[in-house]
């Protein structure tokens, strides 16, 4: 990256700025580090740890908490449920949203203009979820789908659909339309042009969108706690429930927080390039 900033030509300014930046970055990483440090402590070290709680320096670390928690059937079930629901919701949203994004990017709509359709999809994302949680709960109860992964897939796919539409709309707009037109002239038809030409080119974007919406479903709590209590328990609900039944056991809380946080963090690092565009719903191009 080029040197573009004011006052950075001077060596001392650079050093000061770097030091401040390092401090800030460490400050933001601290809570996650703290949860990790707690997950390695013996119960006896919980409150007595000095300094920054650095393993081996301030206390002798142990993996017992991890072994205990990951060996609990409830934890395994929550991790399994969260994985299944997040993957299914992401795939479903991609299947529904990608053709819609293609339609908005490539075709002209008249009565409702293309931008109106995009904004309509987006408005759904801005709605407060608490407004739909009660009727959704009642509908699922009526259908006998309470506490099922299926119900959670349905609602999460709905929530993440706007992300797919907006991210992929931009992707298709960025693809050269000429290749698809050539395919149309060769008699491929619009569906063929979409399926055989545009879709393979959009695959990397779809993967990135898929990762981001996986993380969003993984982190979702309101609907998870309303719909899934035992059979369809999700990771955040499991964390909340464990506090209620077992009390505040910081060492286990550290493990549970880490198991929840690690998968979306890995995704964030992989999909870095797409985060700005994704999370601003395409309003800012990162």
């Amino acid at each position, binding site marked *: 990256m080029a040197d573009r900033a*004011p*006052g950075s030509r001077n060596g001392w300014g*650079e050093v000061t700025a770097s030091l401040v*930046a*390092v401090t800030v970055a460490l400050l*933001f*990483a601290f*809570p*996650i580090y*703290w949860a990790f440090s707690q997950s390695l402590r013996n119960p006896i070290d*919980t409150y007595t740890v000095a300094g920054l709680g650095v393993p081996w320096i301030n206390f002798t670390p142990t993996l017992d908490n991890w072994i205990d928690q990951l060996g609990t059937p409830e934890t395994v079930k929550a991790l399994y449920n969260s994985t299944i629901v997040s993957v299914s919701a992401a795939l479903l949203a991609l299947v*529904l949203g990608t*053709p*819609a994004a*293609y*339609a908005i990017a*490539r*075709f*002209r709509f008249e009565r409702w203009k*293309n931008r109106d*359709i*995009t904004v*309509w*999809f*987006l*408005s759904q994302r801005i*709605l*407060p979820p*608490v*407004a*739909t*949680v*009660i*009727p959704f*709960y*009642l*509908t699922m109860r009526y259908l006998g789908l309470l506490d099922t992964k299926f119900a959670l897939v*349905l609602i999460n796919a709905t929530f993440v*659909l706007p992300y797919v539409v907006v991210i992929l709309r931009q992707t298709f707009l960025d693809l050269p339309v000429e290749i698809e037109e050539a395919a149309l002239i060769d008699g491929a038809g*619009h569906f063929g042009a979409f399926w055989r030409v545009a879709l393979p080119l959009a695959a990397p974007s779809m993967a990135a969108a898929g990762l981001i919406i996986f993380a969003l479903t993984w*982190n979702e*709590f*309101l609907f998870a706690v*309303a719909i899934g209590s035992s059979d369809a328990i999700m990771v*955040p609900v499991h*964390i*909340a429930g464990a*506090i209620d039944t077992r009390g505040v056991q910081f060492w286990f*809380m550290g493990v549970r*927080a880490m198991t*929840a*946080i690690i998968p*979306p963090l890995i995704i*964030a690092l992989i999909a*870095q390039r797409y985060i*700005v565009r994704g999370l601003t719903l*395409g*309003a*800012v191009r*990162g």
Partner: protein
Amino acid sequence: MRWTGKIRFLFLAPAVIWVLAFTVFPLGYSLYLAFYKIEQKVEVKREKQPMLDAAGQPVLDDAGQPRTKNVVIKEQVNTATFIGLDNFKRMLTDTQVHEAVRVTLTFVLIAVPLELVLGFLLAVLFNQHIFGRPILRAFMILPIFATPLAVGYTFFTIFYEVGGPLAWTGIPFLSNPTWALMSVIIVDVWQWTPFCFLVFLAALQGVPDELYEAARVDGANAWDMLKEVMLPLLIPTIVIVLLLRMAEALKLFDIPFALTGGGPGVATQPFSMLAFRTGLRFFDLGYASAMSYAFLAVIMIVITLFFRRLRANYG
């Protein structure tokens, strides 16, 4: 350039139908509920039933008659009474509602500006020549994707007043009503400042070098550069981030759920938590729906502003 043809509706239809089914239908349903008083009662009935053995055959008594047993049947009965606007009127005098509105507004009005200002300053800082910027930037991304509920519980341990890492400050982070709300704000600022930072940094890096050069030639100092070059160019981005954060912050739920449980008392119970509890913990479904609709009306104002701004981006 853009194509027409009926097939376009085929591409679009599945997603549109899906959103209608899972967003528009529930919204309509909850509007209907808002005008009703829904009561859930459990009716207890006693019934005599024939006793069965393991093989499913009736058990006979000495006289050869089937034995019976008393069974208690609990049946959930829902009654819905139309009460017009009473649910909405009730909100006007409900102190819990007033308190939740106060908590939500205080939260939004403090947390969101703080996130924007800090995010902007950090973006300006990171826009300079800094050692190891990609790694530091990656560090800064972590909070955005950390599971909010897990974050809430982690901060619960950090703010813990007996033996937590901040206990030496003597600050009643969670037990004092005002501090508890501040703690919720601190956690939200921790989680969402990086988002503002990331977006602003992306926007700053899109500013052409020539502009800085030109300003430098004109003898601008660092402050002029910030005020005259960076800030004006970033205004559209700032507005979008502001509206996006406001819409999200109004939905506040996960962090106080984990960090304070809405307490002490109801000092950190935001509106969505109140509506959630009213509906799905106390099953006062009509009243909770009315709350949701009132909430929706407020959020619509933000949304309208947001989309007026956003529509231009999708031209």
